[in-house]
């Protein structure tokens, strides 16, 4: 498509947006005084509204729509800049890693709910299955820890497949109730099962690659010491990039079209040959696979896993992230994860009321922007493609 280059949207607005968001994130993560944080958050909201008012967001959207690959690369760079700015700060890096891994999990939910319309209220349970897998495999087997997240993902998909029958036989709300039941059952199972630590949970040994332990700080030369979370940051970022590319390509293919078609009208989809069960299964397993991988890695990051970490309430938060960000838009999922994870951590004063905050945010979004902060645009199979 060389001749059409000239008509393409410019990269500049997208780059500007990434730079602004990066600078803002670094500032927000750096300050600790509560009044300043509240001021920054207020300024962020006001700034976003002002930008929307001035029509600055439209060119940003267009440049993201057409130059997504390049901007994605810059977004990765921006994440690295944020991490580098806090190279020795355990707390901030843990927060960043949490955002990255939760984003992977919400991308998984996005395949299930956003595309196939299968509502999964057991997201945190599958996340927990990944974490428990890591706990068991890292302390009882010699499986290379780098493979463990993969096994965690496969196991989450496998255990999730026990739900396939009820999920395929029911529709809409009823399928959602089945997943809620699964979440409650799994939690009880973990609590009474002493092999898995019971209610106290288990320790998870950290990641190791060829004898290099991820849980040691990285020393470069004599004076530079990086937080050990930097190791996890790099692996988590790679995982997020992989998950993002997967979800993107999935949406921009016939498979994505099939999932949309069956979500919107199963009868019509059947009349054009779609095998409804096949595509629901594909979406459900693929989603749980991503959630399980993220969970296994997160278990290693935290070093500890207990039934209480992965409750129904956490699943609700994952779903609310999806609604907040814009169902079906992976950029929205990542942005909303950052908002939902970072704000309560930084706003220590509201710690007790974080659920109230989630509730208010979700209600506000549903009222004023029902399609989420970043609504899903119409499918473009090959961004920038022109007939």
């Amino acid at each position, binding site marked *: 498509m060389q001749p059409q280059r000239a008509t393409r949207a410019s990269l500049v607005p997208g780059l500007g947006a990434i730079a602004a968001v990066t600078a803002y994130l670094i500032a927000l993560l750096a300050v600790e005084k509560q009044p300043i944080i509240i001021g920054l958050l207020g300024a962020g909201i006001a700034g976003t509204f002002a930008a929307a008012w001035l029509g600055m967001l439209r060119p940003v959207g267009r440049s993201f729509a057409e130059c997504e690959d390049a901007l994605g690369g810059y977004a990765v760079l921006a994440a690295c800049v944020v991490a580098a700015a806090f190279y020795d700060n355990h707390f901030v890096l843990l927060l960043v890693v949490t955002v990255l891994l939760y984003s992977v999990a919400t991308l998984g939910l996005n395949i299930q709910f956003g595309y196939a319309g299968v509502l999964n209220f057991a997201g945190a349970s599958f996340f927990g299955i990944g974490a428990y897998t890591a706990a068991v495999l890292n302390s009882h087997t010699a499986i290379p820890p780098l493979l463990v997240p993969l096994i965690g993902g496969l196991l989450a998909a496998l255990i999730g497949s026990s739900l396939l029958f009820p999920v395929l036989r029911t529709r809409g709300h009823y399928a959602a109730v089945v997943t809620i039941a699964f979440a409650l059952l799994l939690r009880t199972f973990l609590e009474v099962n002493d092999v898995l630590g019971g209610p106290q949970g288990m320790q998870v040994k950290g990641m190791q690659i060829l004898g290099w332990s991820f849980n040691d700080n990285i020393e470069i030369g004599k004076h530079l010491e990086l937080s050990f979370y930097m190791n996890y940051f790099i692996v988590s970022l790679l995982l997020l990039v992989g998950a993002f590319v997967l979800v993107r390509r999935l949406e921009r293919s016939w498979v994505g079209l099939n999932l949309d078609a069956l979500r919107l009208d199963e009868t019509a989809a*059947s009349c054009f*040959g779609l095998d409804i069960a096949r595509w629901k299964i594909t979406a459900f397993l693929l989603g749980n696979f991503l959630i399980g991988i993220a969970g296994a890695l997160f278990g290693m990051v935290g070093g500890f896993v207990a039934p209480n970490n992965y409750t129904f309430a956490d699943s609700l938060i994952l779903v609310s992230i999806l609604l907040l960000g814009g169902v079906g838009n992976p950029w929205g999922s990542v942005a909303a994860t950052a908002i939902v994870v970072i704000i309560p951590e930084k706003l220590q004063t509201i710690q007790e009321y974080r659920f109230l905050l989630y509730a208010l945010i979700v209600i506000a979004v549903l009222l004023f922007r029902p399609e989420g902060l970043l609504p899903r645009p119409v499918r473009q*199979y090959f961004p920038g493609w022109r007939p």
Partner: protein
Amino acid sequence: MTALLQTSALTRAFGGVVALDRLDLVVTRNEILGLIGPNGSGKTTFFNVVTGIYRPDSGEVVFDGMDITGASPQAVYRAGISRTFQRSRLSLPLSIFDNIVIGNHKRLNHGLWFNLVRRADLKRQFEANYLAARELVEAFEPELVGRIFEPVAGLPMIDRRRIEICRALISEPKLLLLDEPSAGMTHDETAELMDDILQVRDRDKTLTIVIVEHEMGVIERITDRCVVLNFGRKIAEGPYRQVAADALVQEAYLGVA
């Protein structure tokens, strides 16, 4: 005069209501057959049983020499029958292109590896389908070509009907079932849409069409032959003028004088 679709003693009841009552119906190759009858006479049920949405209680459906009695909607589609719906069943948030290309499901490659990894091959298939969809849209309404990647939600009823027909046609079916294409449209729009349908038939003389319609003007204009249903039974059959003059048909529509 060979039969493309043939049903024998096709029966389907809902509770006590017999929607199709031992219906013997033949659709001949290359004809446009009008299926008419009062409300509740079983026209749409006939479509739903043939396309596999409902299973028949008894009887047989043979399509192109193949027994498709009780086959799934997927199998019926793959055998070469496409349809439109009485209430437009498009996926409104999706683009015109998406909606049309859903209809080409049986010719697309759905492997995960193909879709996720072999993007260059996918692009070739995408471009071929873009050209096919564009050609269809152009035949119906050239103005829609520029909006082919816009959501269907913003389009008026007549354009949605056109897109539904394009979706049914892109897989080049042998038999097209049109369920009340004029529903929800003005008189002029209906006339326009019928021109489109006749034009489609002119392009492909081998296409066989069964059309359910309440607008008798439409039926008179485009059908070669009509079958009249009442209470799930065939009460008359023949060219429109002949069945319109039939005493039984007049009674079914107007009641006994």
